């Protein structure tokens, strides 16, 4: 099973990279864009074959290492 982990800064935590990207998009004429947030995607191959145990394992990875839950949120996407 494969997993994709999306890590983004929490709402309410200033995201200067997102702000810089937003500013650049405005400069390019994309006036209709706002609230740009930058994050990262981490892809994993897992030995687990069922979704429940895969999710539990990846959640543990997120809490221990992949995300800093003081400032970041994570979302797990499982791909069979």
């Amino acid at each position, binding site marked *: 099973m494969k997993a994709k982990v999306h890590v983004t800064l929490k709402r309410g935590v*200033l995201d*200067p990279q997102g702000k810089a990207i937003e500013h650049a998009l405005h400069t390019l004429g994309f006036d209709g864009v706002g609230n740009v947030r930058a994050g990262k995607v981490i892809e994993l191959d897992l030995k687990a074959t069922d979704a429940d145990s895969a999710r539990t394992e990846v959640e543990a990875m997120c809490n221990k290492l992949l995300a800093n839950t003081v400032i970041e949120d994570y979302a797990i996407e499982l791909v069979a």
Partner: protein
Amino acid sequence: MKAAVILFPGSNRERDAVAALEAASGTRPYEVWHRDTELPKVDLIVVPGGFSYGDYLRAGAMAAHSPIMREVKARADQGVRVLGICNGFQIVTEAGLLPGALMRNAGLKFICRTVTLRVENTDSAFTAKYRKGQIVRYPVAHHDGNYWADAETVKRLEGDGRVAFRYVGDAGEDDPLHNPNGSVRAIAGVFNEKKTVLGLMPHPEDAVVPLHGCLDGKPLFDGLVEALS
């Protein structure tokens, strides 16, 4: 005073820390590799600056899970003093020894210059040789020094006198213009609850000899030697 300096792949300020400690204490500190699992008996552990693991994932995140950090945490729990400077601040914070997190500088730029700080609390082995409110100048060199903690944590830190240093103007005035990296409440350094762990972004070890152009970091090391010898 016996000290240990922890080395990670990518540490680059360990020599400065070793020199400052040796000059202050007259004893050369141990240098301990991150893969080691044991520490000699020491009074102080320094986690130095640099770019451990190339700042992969988040600054300090990988190093915080190095084998030696389990021992550093165990010693910290016993009350052994721990000083985390720059990347070391990021590492000990990621390891959970200090609250909050260090984020990308608000201006997105790497900052390498001297900053002015106010010593906010002198009730610790690290800051005992300063006067409360004293204005000092240390260099900074970082990309991820933007200290963040939620409002409740910041209130608790300030209420308990756990803000060690704050970025201020040259005359000691509070002014957001002199906050180089966007840190919440201009916090440059924080203590743990017992004030036995200090993390700070600026480099006191680079302000200890005349050639540095500034001696303001010397009292920090002299104070540690006095308290821990």
